[in-house]
Structures are given as structure tokens and as C-alpha cells.
């Protein structure tokens, strides 16, 4: 019953006018970002980081979270109507959503994806509510060695599922870890890698890095884009109502998708995108008539939409309870908390209960708000799809620049943004994914601190990582993932070489 008390307290926190307002802003922005192809939640959250400086931490994280799971609601809109995914996790929804629209069932598709998203979202929040206290209790027995193993596992896991070469992703993780050491070492007070430049003594700022790589670089990549779409039909409320059969067909896929999403969302490395792909594949496997898929099968949109929302909510589980972000987006959100002096992890539930439970309560409120935004108000979002994309990126640049200036009221930061943006573009041109870099950067200080502590406690004995059972288990899994990745790379190369030869 302590749980109920916590939830009520959380509800009280999240219903305060200030916090509630930011929840509304968050989910509205999130839907907006999700609906518009070309900008995703990671970029949006990075752009909002400087704004969080000016508001209190609870409101800040409630808003950012709203953007994150809100975007998973809106993302299906463009997938269904334009065959262009609103966010990467909605790519799968194009496969059966667009054919449904072509058959005149666009409204129903939008309705079902919203219901699916609601189901998944609620499942994710419930998982969070019940799992969080359990995980925190278990983590009490974690020592520094276990944390090191856990963080290494999380970092390696995120490289295994990254698009592109896992070796490059791993290099990005290590680079991020390395860059996190720049600045004053809390242990000894020595400023590392400052090269004599005073401005670097504070180290690199996560806000600048996130905005530079996910904001400026994206602008550089997309500034010439010229998508102008026309919509053929109006979406009326009546056209959205599904038939009884369609509702029945969607029920089990939504349930299956939610479960898959919760599991994959909670695991570091996998997130809404993978969850949506997996649940689509599962639906095809269990369907009585798989040939319907790709032509407008309602299971093909209900399940992925449920699972990407479930994954988005469940991603908060490791982030809030253990301080292990499962993705770059979670890492950036953690950055927002760290900026306010809050270290996510097991202690957060105890030290910041109103923030912790307020955030969870805000998820309930947010999901309900999103249903209202996505069904009765769907017309607004649909009309936004007709706005040409060439207006978007200059506008984003203005936001990036003002936000970046507002962090320290320093024009030096603006020039830094340009530099980071160019470097980020260089990484993209050379085929490197920036997301793992951010993960490494956020986890770096904690990893070093725990490694140092583990070595101190074991008096320099490295075997401690193998002696302690949980640490050993995690490291074995990590090694397994690494070997699978390497095997996959070798196999891919061999196949490419054979194809060239034959």
C-alpha cells in the first residue's frame, strides 16, 4: 500500500499547475515532432535542454519525457498518410498503414494506432511502477564492481544493435567516455585535457554536444530538403471509427506488442525502433494469413504502435532506477537531470520521491492527453503535414542558436556549436553513429568513479569483476554480445566478398 501512497503523492505533484503545464507542453511538442518527418525526439530533446536550465527539474523532466513518448503517438500519422515515417520507430507502420490509407481506411488506421499507443503506454507505465521499487531494492546489494559491469554491458549492448558497423559504434562509445574525462577530475582536482584553454576547464558541456550533434549536424544534413506533400482526403471523426471486427482483430496484437515493447524497452540497447520491428515480425509469424501483411493488415499497425510506446515508457526503468540509460535519448534526458544536480539511480527514488513519482504520475496524465490530441484533434496534425519541410530547418537553427546562447549567455558557446556541428557532420560523412558517443559521454564520469572505487575496495585486484557472481554474469553476457557482433561483421564481409567473386 506504500505504492498507492507514492502514486497519490506523485499525482499531487504532477497536477500542480506549473508541472501540469509543462506536461501539456511536452506532449503537444512531442506529437508535433512525431508528426513531422525530418525531426525526431532526440533532436527535439537536445534542443530543449538549454530551456530546462530556466525551469525546475520536475517540470523539466516531465516535459522532456512528454516529448519522448508523445512523439511515438504522433509518429504514425505521416507513416499512414504519406508513407514517410514520422520517427524511426514508426517506419514499420508505413508497411500496412499506408496501404490502409490507400484503401480509404486512413482514419481507422490513425484511430487504432492511437489506441495501440495508449495500450502500450499504459503497459509501460505499469511495468515501471511495479518494477522500479523491486529493482531499486535489488540494486542495494550492488557494489561498485557490479555497477561497472552493468555500465559496460549497457554500453556494449547499445553498440550491438546500432545501425551500421558495431566496431564504429564501439569506437564512438569509447570516444564519448574519453571526452567525458576532459575537465576537472573530481578525485584529484586536476584539470585534464584543457590544453591551457580556460574555457575547457569545466569540461565539455553535454548541452553543447547534444545540440551540436543532434541539432546543428541535422540542420546541415537536411537544410536542402524540400518535401511538400498534399493530402488526398480529409480525416473526419466518423471516418476514424473502426468496425467491431477491426477492433477485435487489434486486441491481441496490442497486448502482444505491449509485452514485447516493455521487455525490449527496458533492456539497454534496444528501444522503440527494435521493438516495433520485432513485434511486426511476430504478428506476421502468428497470423493465420500472413499474406495480408503489407496490404493493410490492421495487426501490422496495432502491434508495432503498441510496442514502440511500451518501449518508450519502459526505457525509463533502467534510467531512473539504476542510472543506466538504454539509449542516447535517455542519456540526454539524464543529462537534463544531472544539470540540475540530480543523479538518476537507486538513490533518486529515496532522495527525490516527489520528482520520481511525480514523473510516473505524469506519464498517466500524458498518455490520456495524447489520446485526446490524437483522436479528436487529429485534424490539426494532419494539416501540418502539408507544410513544406523547407521551413523547418531554418526555424530549428534559430531555436538552437538562441537556446545555446541562453545557457551561459556566451557567444563563445555559439562558435562552439558551429565547431561541434561540423565535427558531427564529419562523423556522419565517415559513417559513424553519434548516439553511442552521447551514451559514453553521459556514463563516463560514473564509470570512472565506480571503477576507481572497485579497485580501491579490492586493493587493485582486477579479478574482483570475475569473482562476484552478478558482475561475472553481466560480463559473460557482454562478451557474448561482442562475439556475436564480431561474428556478424565477419559473416557480412565474407558474404560481400563471395558476391563480388561470383
Amino acid at each position, binding site marked *: 500500500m506504500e505504492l498507492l501512497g507514492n502514486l497519490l503523492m506523485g499525482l499531487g505533484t504532477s497536477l500542480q499547475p506549473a508541472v501540469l503545464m509543462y506536461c501539456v507542453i511536452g506532449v503537444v511538442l512531442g506529437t508535433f515532432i512525431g508528426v513531422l518527418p525530418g525531426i525526431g525526439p532526440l533532436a527535439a530533446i537536445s534542443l530543449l535542454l538549454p530551456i530546462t536550465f530556466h525551469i525546475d527539474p520536475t517540470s523539466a523532466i516531465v516535459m522532456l519525457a512528454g516529448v519522448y513518448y508523445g512523439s511515438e503517438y504522433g509518429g504514425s500519422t505521416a507513416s499512414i498518410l504519406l508513407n514517410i515515417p514520422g520517427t524511426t520507430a514508426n517506419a514499420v507502420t508505413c508497411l500496412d498503414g499506408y496501404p490502409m490509407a490507400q484503401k480509404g481506411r486512413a482514419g481507422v488506421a490513425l484511430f487504432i494506432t492511437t489506441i495501440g499507443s495508449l495500450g502500450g503506454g499504459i503497459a509501460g507505465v505499469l511495468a515501471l511502477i511495479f518494477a522500479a521499487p523491486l529493482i531499486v531494492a535489488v540494486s542495494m546489494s550492488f557494489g561498485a564492481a557490479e555497477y561497472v559491469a552493468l555500465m559496460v554491458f549497457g554500453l556494449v549492448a547499445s553498440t550491438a544493435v546500432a545501425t551500421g558497423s558495431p566496431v564504429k559504434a564501439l*569506437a564512438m562509445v569509447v570516444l564519448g*567516455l574519453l571526452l567525458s574525462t576532459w575537465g576537472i577530475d573530481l578525485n584529484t582536482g586536476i584539470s585534464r585535457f584543457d590544453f591551457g584553454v580556460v574555457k575547457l576547464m569545466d569540461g565539455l558541456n553535454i548541452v553543447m554536444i547534444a545540440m551540436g550533434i543532434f541539432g546543428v549536424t541535422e540542420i546541415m544534413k537536411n537544410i536542402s530538403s524540400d518535401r511538400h506533400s498534399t493530402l488526398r482526403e480529409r480525416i473526419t471523426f466518423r471516418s476514424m471509427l473502426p468496425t467491431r471486427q477491426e477492433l477485435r482483430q487489434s486486441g491481441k496484437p496490442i497486448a502482444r506488442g505491449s509485452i514485447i515493447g516493455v521487455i525490449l524497452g527496458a533492456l539497454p540497447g534496444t528501444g522503440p525502433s527494435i521493438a516495433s520491428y520485432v513485434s511486426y515480425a511476430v504478428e506476421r509469424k502468428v497470423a493465420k494469413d500472413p499474406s495480408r501483411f503489407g496490404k493493410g493488415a490492421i495487426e501490422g499497425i496495432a502491434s508495432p504502435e503498441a510496442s514502440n510506446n511500451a518501449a518508450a515508457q519502459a526505457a525509463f526503468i533502467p534510467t531512473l532506477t539504476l542510472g543506466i540509460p538504454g539509449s542516447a535519448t535517455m542519456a540526454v534526458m539524464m543529462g537534463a537531470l544531472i544539470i540540475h544536480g540530480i543523479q538518476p539511480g537507486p538513490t533518486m527514488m529515496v532522495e527525490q520521491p516527489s520528482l520520481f513519482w511525480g514523473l510516473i504520475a505524469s506519464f498517466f496524465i500524458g498518455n490520456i492527453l495524447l489520446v485526446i490530441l490524437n483522436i479528436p484533434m487529429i485534424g490539426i496534425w494532419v494539416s501540418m503535414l502539408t507544410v513544406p519541410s523547407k521551413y523547418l530547418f531554418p526555424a530549428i537553427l534559430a531555436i538552437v542558436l*538562441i537556446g545555446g546562447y541562453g545557457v551561459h549567455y556566451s557567444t563563445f558557446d555559439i562558435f562552439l556549436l558551429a565547431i561541434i556541428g561540423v565535427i558531427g557532420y564529419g562523423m556522419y560523412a565517415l559513417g559513424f553513429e553519434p548516439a553511442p558517443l552521447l551514451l559514453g559521454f553521459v556514463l563516463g564520469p560514473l564509470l570512472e568513479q565506480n571503477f576507481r572505487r572497485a579497485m580501491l575496495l579490492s586493493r587493485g585486484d582486477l579479478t574482483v569483476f570475475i569473482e562476484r557472481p552478478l558482475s561475472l554474469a553481466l560480463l559473460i553476457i557482454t562478451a557474448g554480445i561482442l562475439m556475436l557482433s564480431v561474428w556478424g561483421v565477419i559473416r557480412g564481409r565474407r558474404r560481400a566478398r563471395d558476391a563480388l567473386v561470383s
Partner: protein
Amino acid sequence: MYRIDVRDIIGGGALIAFGALCAFVSAGYGLGTVRNMGPGFFPMVLSVLLVALGLAIAVPALMRSGTSIEVQWRNVLIVTAAIVFFGSTLTTLGALLTVFLTILIVSFASALTLRQAAMTGIAMAAGIWLVFILGLGMTIPLTPWSY
């Protein structure tokens, strides 16, 4: 096109160079022992790892052909110029004018006509005033005369 993968050689090479540089600097901070780690210990470990990964990327690239590097030079240049312009003139021209002009500059990389860019510039200047200055209370000078 070539018999080697230029992209990965450059990428791997950059990592090797950066890792080597950081390793060199880390050594200067004192490594200490495993039991009593100096400030340079953790960075050194990471630098060595980075060099190793850089090699793992660059060396296989010598033996296979790869994808070409595609850079949109014009876009990168224009966006950078717009940002540099913003940083240089914000404190003299004030936020409203600077935002407007920056959008005009960056619009050369986009598909916007000058008129559309001007409208976007005005809209963004107004929006930024509403959200950042009125809404969040940031104290940014708005006009050239606000000094």
C-alpha cells in the same frame, strides 16, 4: 571505385590520431597504479582502446573497396557561416534583427525563396521573443538600441 576503403581509412586514422594524442597527454597526468589510480589512468586506458578500435577500422579498410564519402560542402559552409554570423552580431544587433538576418543567410542552403525566408525570419524572431524572452524570462537584448 578505388581498391581501398578511403572512408574507413580516414575514419580509423582520425581515431588513431586522436587516441594517440590523448594517450600522450594522459601519461603526463600520472598514471598511478591500478589500486591507486592517478588522473591519467582512466583516460589512458580509453585512449589505448580508441587507438585499437581505430586500427580495427582502418586496417581492414586497406583490403577492400568501400563506399564513397558524400559531403554537402555548400550546406555545411552556409550553415556554419550563419552560425558564425549569429555569434558575432548578437550582442551588437540584438536578438530580433540577428535572428532575422541569420535565417536569411541560412536560407541560401534551403529551397526557400527570399520572400519565404524573410517571412520565416520575422515569424521566428517574433516566436523567439514570445517563448524565450517573455515566456522563460531570458535577458537577451532585443534591438541594437538596447545597450
